[in-house]
């Protein structure tokens, strides 16, 4: 373990050293903090992925929203109703949508196992194709490729409110027992979540759109907030390398907290005139 840590440390140091040598010539000036940040974050995450692959036990705290996914699909199965999955209104260039499609894969696997109808209305054609691929794989993994057909995932409209109207129409007509909102959302979030609430569906939301989180928290039964949403697919897959990346992410978060406290203390002391050292300039942030 320590050898690997040393190796990753040396490789990171070499990359940063090469960057330093070529700074201004080979590499663009002015974003050294970003570069060093990326290397440090990547090497930390990579170290924990590697550690998890080697069999290191990693504890993940229980996330209620993720535990409820199977419960929600089970409820839909018992009621003989469908499951609705909304992957947001953005395209595949948004990480939120990618994370949403990852979660869709897990939901589709459960619906395939339970033989429950799944309905995935999409807002973008590329998302439709990716979602189909993900669902097809999941049905295959669950051993039920016979239940899969392309129209599980269908396109509604590229326009935000036309899409919201279309999805609301599906909800009102089909009355799904479970609604998942996982992806990038804007103003339509509350339109969808409130309609889902009005039909009595169990609702699980997850988004990286900070401004939409309050709406989902209010209207949904469970909400994956911030990093929980991005960790969901890793959590659900239970694959060591994916879980390792979450651990690495948490360590980076701890490092960020330490840096924030250090900057706060140093800058406060400097502003009080007790120290002639500007940490912000030192870190290239000022």
């Amino acid at each position, binding site marked *: 373990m320590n050898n690997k840590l040393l190796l990753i440390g040396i490789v990171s140091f070499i990359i940063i050293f090469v960057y330093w040598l070529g700074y201004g010539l*080979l590499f663009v000036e002015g974003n050294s903090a970003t570069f060093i940040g990326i290397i440090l974050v990547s090497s930390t995450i990579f170290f924990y992925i590697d550690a998890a692959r080697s069999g290191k036990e990693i504890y993940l705290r229980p996330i209620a929203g993720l535990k409820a996914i199977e419960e929600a699909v089970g409820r839909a199965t018992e009621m003989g109703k469908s499951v609705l999955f909304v992957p947001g209104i953005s395209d595949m260039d948004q990480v939120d949508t*990618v994370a949403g499609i990852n979660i869709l894969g897990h939901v589709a696997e459960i619906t395939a196992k339970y033989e429950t109808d799944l309905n995935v209305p999409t807002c973008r054609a590329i998302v439709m*194709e990716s979602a189909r691929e993900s669902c097809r794989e999941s049905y295959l993994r669950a051993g039920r490729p016979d239940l899969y057909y392309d129209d599980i995932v269908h396109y509604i409209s590229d326009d935000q409110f*036309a899409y919201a109207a279309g999805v609301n129409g599906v909800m009102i*007509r089909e009355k799904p027992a479970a609604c998942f909102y996982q992806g990038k959302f804007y103003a339509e979030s*509350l339109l969808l979540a409130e309609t889902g609430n009005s039909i009595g569906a169990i609702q699980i939301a997850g988004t990286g759109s900070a401004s939409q989180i309050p709406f989902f928290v*209010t209207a949904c039964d469970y909400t994956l907030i911030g990093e929980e949403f*991005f960790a969901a697919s890793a959590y659900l897959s239970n694959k060591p390398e994916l879980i390792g990346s979450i651990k690495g992410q948490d360590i980076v978060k701890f490092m960020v907290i330490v840096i924030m406290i250090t900057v706060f203390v140093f800058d406060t002391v400097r502003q009080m005139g007790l120290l002639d050292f500007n940490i912000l300039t030192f870190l290239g942030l000022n």
Partner: protein
Amino acid sequence: MFLKRQMPTIIAISVGLFILFGHFINYEPIQHFVDNDATQWFDIIASFAIFLGALNMLKLQVLKVAKKQKNWQYSILAILGFAFAIFAGFFFRGANYVNLTEIDPDKVTQLITHISTIQDIKDPLLMKKSINSSLADYEIPKIFISRSNANHFAGLVSGLATDVTVGSKPWGAHVQIEGSLFSWMFFKVFTPLSSTMFALLAFFVASASYRAFRIRNFEATLLLVAGIILMIGRVPVGELIPWWVVSTLIVFGFGALIAPLIMDKKILFGIIFCGFFASIGLGIIFDWSLAVNTPEILSITNISEWIFDYPTAAGSRAIMIGIALGIIATSFRIILGIEKPF
């Protein structure tokens, strides 16, 4: 199998790493590719993919009608709407204009009178000035959807200029010109429908707020109090609330906070009453009725700003940091091919 499995992963990893490190490489073509070409590639692919989406939507609606599935009547509307949009975009241009060459300067007023029959003129003098400055070649500001209407108007004004011609705006540009069938559909049908959906938000916000603000536990109470302060602080009437109302609210709020800790209700009420009279007494002694003497904490506007600038900003930044790290970790997993959503 290689093309279906390994190839996409290789493309994703190589392009991902290239775009990531391209930001740091000091070479103009790479910078240009990262900043412009790569995003344009995505736009081009997305533009072609729209056909897949549109055909899928049409196929499902047609099948619904053909098989007379439940609620198939709505699908007829969807198909008709689709067909109308195609017709307005590709087959019926509209966007007809009337152009006058060498207008008789003595007949400008007459021309304005004719224009006023088809369009509201806010400032006739300004229009007269505009026509006089382009007597040699003037385009009527009104765009006609139907060719016959344009011809009819051209006939009316034919005696006012040497030559009156009727033309159409070019294909493609017509979708953005007010007066084409497409823009009519967009502004008169689509925009009101979109606005209606957006307006529904107001009602949904009300019902969602009602649920969120119901007092069930300490957190919900805190949310309710913060919400009310923010709402009052953001409207003009918030500034008119006198200091003694705010100080009383603070005393009662403090009382509500300590209530679970004090079992004896007499002591609790004693503390609240003492606080109430003490705050009023302090206000009278220090003359808080004068705006300059009032402590900042006794202004609802200041309290709402404080809530917005500190606790709210701190909470939302914590979430933002978590989201940013989540995005980095997810991107890292995809770039390294550990997680494959494709």
